[in-house]
């Protein structure tokens, strides 16, 4: 009865065998495939992961050698010390006797943590503001965008400096300061994505099916909006790390007794005449972080939002 109709109907179309030839691949699986193709992006991802791992592992292993000690002044590079303990002092020791590599990795860890944490705050505020503005439209959008305009008009750098001066030069005050001054780009990106998605046919279809606004946002609008967010976030990490380094270098960031790439540069600058190489190492790490984050961001963007380009063999 119904089955013969369906068989006849399917025969009329008879066009789905091509599909069986390929494996089932979801959008995210395809994105991952595209990402993996992008060699620089993969290199960037590996570099960042390596830095994170090193920043956690090396200071733990180096242990005591992170502190100054006159007896180790200018000691040569080593992996194990005389007692046979692992120190990983592969860059040797400074004039004041601390494990250069160990301190470098500890500083990297601090800088990366500040970078990621600040970006997290940026994403939370930015996505909230942007999605509400983009979804609601009308006067809500207008008001929120004026708030963004005001936030942009205020001089971010000075606000951060003032914030840190007021709340003390701790890691958390820097994180929060960078976070609350840097969310405007993310908000605009999300808003733009939401505004265009509101008109997308599949969003309209979901509304026509009776889906609640919450479901529409969570299921249909946020996932595509994440593409620009992830890209902005990876670039944002680089920005935040450099910002912290600059502030700490100038003495406006975290205090010099805590190791971050910026404070290392601050100290190294003072000793430029006697130990010029001390400037080199934090700078190299900073460059690595920025390059890696940029390549990663590029790769993410191409993976999540590909332009249909026919790749040449």
């Amino acid at each position, binding site marked *: 009865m119904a089955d013969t109709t369906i068989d006849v109907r399917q*025969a*009329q*179309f*008879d*066009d789905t065998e*091509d599909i069986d*030839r390929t494996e089932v691949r979801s959008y995210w699986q395809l994105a991952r495939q595209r990402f993996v193709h992008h060699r620089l992006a993969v290199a960037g991802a590996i570099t960042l992961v390596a830095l994170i791992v090193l920043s956690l592992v090396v200071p733990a292993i180096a242990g005591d050698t992170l502190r100054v000690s006159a007896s180790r002044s200018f000691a040569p590079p080593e992996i194990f010390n005389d007692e046979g303990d692992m120190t990983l002092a592969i860059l040797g020791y400074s004039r004041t006797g601390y494990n250069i590599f160990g301190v470098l990795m500890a500083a990297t860890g601090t800088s990366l943590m500040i970078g990621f944490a600040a970006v997290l705050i940026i994403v939370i505020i930015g996505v909230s503001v942007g999605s509400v503005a983009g979804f609601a439209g009308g006067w809500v959008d207008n008001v929120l965008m004026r708030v963004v305009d005001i936030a942009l008009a205020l001089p971010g750098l000075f606000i951060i400096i003032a914030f840190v001066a007021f709340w003390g030069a701790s890691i958390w005050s820097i994180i929060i300061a960078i976070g609350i001054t840097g969310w405007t780009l993310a908000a605009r990106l999300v808003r733009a994505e939401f505004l265009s998605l509101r008109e997308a046919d599949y969003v309209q279809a979901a509304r026509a099916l009776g889906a609640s606004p919450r479901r529409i946002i969570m299921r249909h609008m946020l996932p595509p909006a994440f593409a620009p967010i992830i890209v902005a976030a990876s670039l944002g990490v680089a920005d935040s790390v450099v910002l912290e380094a600059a502030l700490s270098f100038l003495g406006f960031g975290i205090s010099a007794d805590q190791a971050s790439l910026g404070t290392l540069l601050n100290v190294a600058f003072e000793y430029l005449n006697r130990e010029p190489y001390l400037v080199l190492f934090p700078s190299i790490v900073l460059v690595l972080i920025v390059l890696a984050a940029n390549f990663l961001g590029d790769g993410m963007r191409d993976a999540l939002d590909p332009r249909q380009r*026919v*790749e*040449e*063999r």
Partner: protein
Amino acid sequence: MTASARSGGPLLEIKGLKTHFFTQDGTVKAVDGVTFEIGHGQTLGVVGESGCGKSITSLSVMRLIERPGKIVAGEILLNGDDLLTASDEEVREIRGDQVSMIFQEPMTSLNPVFTCGEQISEAVQQHTSASSREGMDRAIEMLGVVGIPDAKRRAHEYPHQLSGGMRQRVMIAMALSTDPDLLIADEPTTALDVTIQAQILEVMRDLRQKNRMAIMLITHDLGVVAEMADEVVVMYSGKVVERGDVRTIFGNPHHPYTKGLLSSIPRLDERVERLEVIKGTVPSPYNLPTGCLFKRRCPYRMPICDVAPPYQVVGEEHASRCWLTPAGEAPDVGADASGEEAERAGELLTVEPR
């Protein structure tokens, strides 16, 4: 008058054209052995659906194919000169001068930062010794010829100030300003409303008559072909599957694809209860069938269709790429023939150059 016109030869001859795209996922044979010609002052309709290769054919004629595409074989003779062996310099001179092209989307074909008059004038100055003032005069003249009212004022306007129909007229004016022998129109009215389409087609009819201009009209709209073309070429998956005079193609089509296409479109003047259907879908270029490319969808399929069918003559000035005889029956060599026997029979029947 050109040499070929004097001798009575065709204006444009395309012989065995093959344009392939070399991609990561495989080679796409977008145009795979296409042969046809256009006579002086004649309008040839090139019909087909997406993926048939009609646009790529026209871009190949204009030598506008870019990587990863490449013209890998064939000849394109314009007035007897092979465009494919000509130097870049020579091709640039020919483009816009002897052969002009108009595209589907007038908004993206016109440069938004120049006025319409400037763009037409540029084309004129490129190919003649005209000065910029003379070029502008010619531009205003052409805008009038294509029926744009108040041409002098319009010439100083920018594309975004004009409607879609107007922009398409500007494109036609630009294409015709150098008095080309051949106009290639790639879906010129598809993006336009139907009443505007009627206006544009009327302009084209007027101009081809006045200038004795040949037109290669590429479209998927059979109605437009019926109204405008003298001869028709039907393309499918990169090959020509049928060619003939417009009345023959519409009144007595031979190839099952052409037949299927004609009977599946809803007609304004007739009403049927149920439309005929061509089952299945266009094959993926990465997964083409062996033998006849249409066989999976063909209601007349025979075992011999696993061997590539000959491009045979089925009537006066009428050819079709199919195993069926002109009368529509199984071929003499037998519907079950295969392998060498079938190939030999095919070679005897085919009129296409290898």
